[in-house]
């Protein structure tokens, strides 16, 4: 009977605090990870939205090509009209 009482005391005074002590940081870490994952999700979504303008690069590409062609055509004239030193 004495051993039963000793076991009860150990269970309530030692095991129960140890369980609480071990599980509390696990819960805190899990909750912190939730916040970080939501931040990552929001950042990725915002980054994806920012890249909606990427198709405009095709317009830039076409404009650059036209500009360079113009410069190339202008260069021939410039070669003629610009006086040599």
């Amino acid at each position, binding site marked *: 009977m004495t051993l039963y*009482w000793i076991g009860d005391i150990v269970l309530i005074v030692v095991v129960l605090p140890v369980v609480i002590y071990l599980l509390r940081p696990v819960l805190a870490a*899990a909750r912190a990870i939730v916040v970080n994952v939501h931040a990552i999700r929001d950042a990725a979504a915002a980054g994806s939205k920012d890249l909606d303008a990427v198709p405009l690069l095709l317009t830039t590409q076409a404009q650059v090509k036209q500009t360079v062609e113009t410069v190339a055509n202008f260069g021939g004239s410039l070669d003629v009209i610009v*006086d040599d030193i």
Partner: protein
Amino acid sequence: MPAAGIVLIIGVVLVIAAAAAFLLPTIAALVAINRGLDEAIAAVGELIAKTEPVKPVVDDINGNLDAAVDALEGLLVKKAGLSDSLGLIESLYPGAAAAGLRNYPESTSIVPPRISEVYTRGTLTLARLGREAPIAASSPNGPVLRHVERSEVATRLLYTDVRQDRPETLPRSPVIGTDAPTQYEASDTPGERPRMPDGKSGGTSATLVRPGEGEE
């Protein structure tokens, strides 16, 4: 049942309750993490898909710009010569001549000459193509800079023009119309006056006096 057994059962229940109190929110948090990661992975997938065509497009743009830079550099070197080209570049962008010209590796070993303040207008235009350089913006203790105001005046003097000589007064433009103080007779032939200002007979534009002359 002895009292010790009842206390034991109560103790076990307390331990299980404590574990459950912490593990259940942990499970809920893990579920939320899993859901959030799924959404993040989907967004990252969109990022990858949207950035996929960027590289070839940017490479193409860079290729075109490279061709333009090559052409303009070549034209500048053709017009000004390699040494003077570096001098011009150094005067417009202090320190830039050290990098040299891309298609002229020997240009990195050339000491850029000190360019005087007089350039031809066309060469300056060529050197300034595409941008207006912040000339003389750096410290006077830095590399040799072109004197902006003097160079403009000196360049102007290369071209003959009455207005560029900055005379005291310039002849005023004629007033035309029915209310003009001087009425001109209509010309039958373009470029030929029926009567000259001094009252002589008519003449062609080639024989006309320059503005300001013959008005005394």
